[in-house]
C-alpha cells in the first residue's frame, strides 16, 4: 500500500498543478478524485502515471469545471497490475 502511494507521489511531476481531494486504493484498483488548473494538466498526470508498469490502465474521467475553486475537477482510475504491490 505504501509502495503504491510512493509511486503516485514519485510519478506526479512537482511542477504539475494537481491536488488530490480523495484517494481510494483497493486490491486491484486505485480511484483518485482531484483538482487541476486545466484539462492538459490532468492529461499530463495520466501520461505520467501510465509510465509505471504496475499501473496497467490509467483513465481520466469526469473532467468538470469547478465553479467554486475554478479550474477542473477530475477522476483518475487505475487498474493495478502484478508489479505494483
Amino acid at each position, binding site marked *: 500500500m*505504501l509502495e503504491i*502511494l510512493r509511486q503516485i507521489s514519485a510519478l506526479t511531476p512537482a511542477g504539475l498543478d494537481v491536488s488530490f*481531494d*480523495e*484517494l*481510494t*486504493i*483497493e486490491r486491484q484498483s486505485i480511484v483518485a478524485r482531484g483538482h487541476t488548473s486545466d484539462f492538459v494538466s490532468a492529461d499530463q498526470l495520466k501520461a505520467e502515471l501510465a509510465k509505471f508498469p504496475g499501473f496497467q490502465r490509467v483513465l481520466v474521467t469526469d473532467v468538470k469545471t469547478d465553479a467554486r475553486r475554478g479550474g477542473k475537477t477530475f477522476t483518475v482510475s487505475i487498474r493495478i497490475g502484478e508489479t505494483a504491490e
Partner: protein
Amino acid sequence: MNELLAPLRRYLAGRSARERWLLVAVGCVLAFLLVYVGVIVPLQEGAAGADQRVAQLEGERTRALRIAAEMRAIQGELAAVEAAIQPGAQTNLIALLSTLAAEAKISQEQLESIEPKQPSENAKYPETRAEVRLKGTSLEQIVTFLHRIETSSSHLIVRSLKIRTRGESDSGPVLDVSFSVSSFERA
C-alpha cells in the same frame, strides 16, 4: 522390356535429329515439373509448417519459463510469509494498531476508531481484521503509521485505503483516513 520400347525407338528413328532433341527437351521440362510439383513443393510446405510450429513452440517455451519463474517467486514469497506467521500466534490486532498509531505520533483525538471486522473464512491461515479510522492527520503521520504497520513483525496487511482531504493547515493538507488491516496465523 525391349518389346515395349520398340515402338518408341521406331518413332524416334523416324524423327529428324532436331525433332529428337526437341522431344528430349520437352521430356526434361515435364520431368522437372513433375519433380517440382510432386516432391519440392510438398517439402517446402512441410518446411514452412515446421518453421511455424517451431516458432509457436518457442513462444510456448518462453511463456512456460516466465510462468515457472513467477511461480518460484510466489513460492519464495509464500515461504517468507509462512515463516513470518507463527503457528497459533494470537495477535491482539487492536492493541497492536493502537501501539503503532502512538509510535506514529497519532493522538487519541486523531485515532477515531479501531473496530474489529468480520474476517474471511480461511482454515489454513485464520485471519483477524480491523478497520482503522483517523481524522485530521497529516500525510507524514499516515505514511509513518502505514510504514510501521507494513514493517511490523506480526506481518500485517493493509487493505482498502481511503484518504480524503478535509482542509489545509500550515504544515500541509489535513486528511481523514480509513483502512482495514489483516493479520494471519497458521492453523
